[in-house]
């Protein structure tokens, strides 16, 4: 059964942030992304979710001015992705899936290169870089060649490079990939801190626990937008009611099936797990059970983890 989910809706355009309207990208006959519409506010951490090949990277590339949209438009911190490529790239920071460092160059040289590309005054940009280097545990390694760095160190240096020009909008593709738990936590803290400074952050990740922890809202894409909304709301869309009744719980399934909204009912460990589209349906479920003669011992509402909701979404879309 397909549960109703928050649907894409046009929100008020943010002054900063990101505003996407009908964005599409085609490579020849192949459509990578179609009709994406969403907004991301300044100071928001926004999750962009989807399976491999769903169009997340293509979307990010359009929003960072690397690819031209085939249709639609988007504004990133007020800069059109179709018309303001150079000014757009000055305000965005992109952490790609691969760190993409110059191995023969030292960490300092790698960062200096990007400072130069952004035409920054190194005297003011270096303290910021040093701050993040220290924070990510790379202090004292500035003059080591990147080729000698571990995978985690490379990832952390790539994050510093992403931040070196003080971007207003930051796109992070799997930012904690390859990091140990402590470093991953440092990065998550840094992401939250960057958002609290008013920056817009778009997080692409398959680590849904991390997305759940960091993001206020998420978009689930598979070529097109499958769902968009606050994580809380998405999880509520997959809300379940765990009901413990006296006696044979199975006996009450037919009664529940007669409810007008016909909830999906599972029997789990002697309890009834009733899947609801809306928490307002809970009293009807209880009334129905009582009406069928059940002695209800407990009713516990539980939200499913984002991962379960996400997988259901993709399953529904595939079906």
């Amino acid at each position, binding site marked *: 059964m397909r549960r109703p989910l928050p649907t894409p809706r046009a929100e008020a355009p943010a002054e900063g942030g990101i505003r996407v309207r009908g964005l599409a990208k085609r*490579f020849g006959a192949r459509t990578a992304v179609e009709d994406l519409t969403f907004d991301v506010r300044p100071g928001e951490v926004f999750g962009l979710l989807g399976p491999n090949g769903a169009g997340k990277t293509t979307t990010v*590339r359009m929003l*960072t*001015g*690397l*690819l*031209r949209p085939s249709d639609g438009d988007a504004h990133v911190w007020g800069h059109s992705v179709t018309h303001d*490529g*150079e000014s757009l*790239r*000055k305000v*965005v920071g*992109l952490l*790609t899936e*691969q*760190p*993409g*460092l*110059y*191995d*023969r*160059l030292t960490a300092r*040289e790698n960062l200096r*290169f*990007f400072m*130069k*590309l*952004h*035409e920054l005054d190194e005297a003011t940009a270096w303290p910021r870089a040093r701050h993040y280097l220290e924070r990510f545990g790379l202090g004292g390694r500035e003059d080591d*060649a990147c080729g000698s760095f571990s995978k985690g160190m490379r990832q952390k240096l*790539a994050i510093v*490079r992403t931040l070196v020009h003080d971007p207003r909008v930051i796109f992070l593709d799997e930012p904690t990939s390859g990091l140990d738990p402590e470093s991953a936590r440092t990065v998550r803290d840094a992401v939250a801190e960057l958002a609290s400074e008013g920056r817009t952050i778009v997080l692409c990740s398959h680590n849904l626990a991390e997305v759940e922890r960091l993001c206020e809202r998420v978009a689930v894409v598979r070529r097109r937008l499958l769902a968009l909304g606050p994580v809380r709301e998405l999880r509520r869309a997959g809300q379940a009611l765990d009901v413990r009744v006296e006696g044979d719980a199975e006996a009450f399934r037919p009664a529940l099936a007669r409810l007008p909204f016909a909830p999906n009912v599972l029997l789990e460990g002697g309890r009834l797990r009733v899947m609801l589209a809306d928490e307002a349906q809970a009293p009807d479920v209880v009334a129905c059970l009582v009406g069928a003669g059940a002695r209800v011992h407990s009713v516990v509402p539980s939200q499913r983890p984002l991962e379960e909701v996400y997988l259901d979404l993709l399953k529904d879309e595939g079906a």
Partner: protein
Amino acid sequence: MAFRPRRAMAVFWKDSLDLRKNVGLLLSMAVLPMVMVTVPIAVVWTYVSQPDHSDLRTVALFYDPTLPLGASAARFLIDKSLTDWFGMFLVMPVFIPILIASQSVAGEKERRTLEPLLASPVSAAELVAGKSLAALVPAVLMTWFAFALFCVGVDIVAWPLVGAPLMPNALWGFGVFVLAPLFAFFGNGVAVLISARVSEARMAQQLSALVVLPLVGLVGGQVAGVLKAGLAYYAIQGAVVLVLDLVLLAASIRLLDRERLISRWG
């Protein structure tokens, strides 16, 4: 979009730094100048060491049947070798940028550094300018340095026969200071163009290196006596290469477009 020299210089700075740390590439770059300098010096030395060898006159008459009886065949062949060798010497300013530019453009794809680079404000023209400078400057400097060694070597070896400095002469001066940068630009342009189309630096190098074949062919024609090299001959070559350079420059900027690079290789 306005061209910002600072950003082009940033690319030049990074690529030059990367090149200085790439020992393998530096060594492979040094081999060609060594060959280009030592081979002609050895040839001149051969003529100087046996100036009266009867076979020299036979060879000289093959190239110039009007050679006066009293003229030194060895001296004639030294002059001819130096003139012809210049065509071969031009392989160096073409080949060195190919080695560097192939690494710097296709290498960015291989190392997955292209996407972060293209996500910066640098424009295609700035990228081409920076990467081209990083390939051209070492190529031209190496050519000039090799030319200086070549002049000294030839003059030392030829002195016992000629008694005066042979090098530099007008043809070589014109060639090294005017034609060599044009040829270097050509080699770089071809490498940038091919690098933008292929995924591996090695493949880019191999394909780009094919452009030296026509040059070698021309030298072959000179040695076979079919082509007569001289200032006008090289000036025509230079004019043709100048036109090709302009075409390659426009094509490189077009091919280093973000969309193309990313959708193909990113």
